[in-house]
């Protein structure tokens, strides 16, 4: 499942909603990305996160499908926020549910790597004096 939304999310609620559908799940690896207080050696005030929404859905679906096939995942969840996000807020959640732990670890890292590389989101990071568009290193 892919969600692209402005609002915050509750990890317990989002995860249990999916977990409860599948009693054969033994392992969940999840990743959460947060807004850090310091970046490029500057104090961060907030991010403005822009998204190309229609394309983000398509790209994340492709990545999710590839991971699901390659690691026989039972279910997945990707939530990516956009808009104004202040320090300490969650930006992204990726969950990979599987029978055993190895597959969920590998799949979760794979999804994060491709999300960082290809998903059309852009962070405009605001410091106290100026702002900067970030680029993920590949």
């Amino acid at each position: 499942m892919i969600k692209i939304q402005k609002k915050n999310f509750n990890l317990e609620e989002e995860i249990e909603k999916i977990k409860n559908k599948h009693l054969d799940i033994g392992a969940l690896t999840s990743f959460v990305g947060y807004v850090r207080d310091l970046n490029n050696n500057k104090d961060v005030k907030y991010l403005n996160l822009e998204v190309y929404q229609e394309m983000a859905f398509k790209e994340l679906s492709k990545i999710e499908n590839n991971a699901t096939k390659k690691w026989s995942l039972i279910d997945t969840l990707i939530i990516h926020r956009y808009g104004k996000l202040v320090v300490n807020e969650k930006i992204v959640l990726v969950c990979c549910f599987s029978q055993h732990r190895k597959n969920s670890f590998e799949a979760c890292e794979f999804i994060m790597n491709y999300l960082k590389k290809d998903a059309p989101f852009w962070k405009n990071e605001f410091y106290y004096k100026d702002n900067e568009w970030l680029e993920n290193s590949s």
Partner: protein
Amino acid sequence: MRIRYFAWIKDITNKEDEIIDINHPKSIQELKKYLENLYPELKKHFLQDVLRFAVNQEYVSENLNLKPIDEIAIFPPVSGG
């Protein structure tokens, strides 16, 4: 043909999107030339080859034939996650 701009590309074009109705470019190469005329500042970024192009929400190589109904997006390297 709808062209969409994202992140700091919008600061150069001063708009989020625009429609090219007549004499629409037939390829990404032609589109680049077209846009360089409209927005001279884009030229150096095209030359550096850092921008990415998507046609109908899919990344494309440059030799695709563009059609009038296509939605084309131009954006800098992404920074999600």
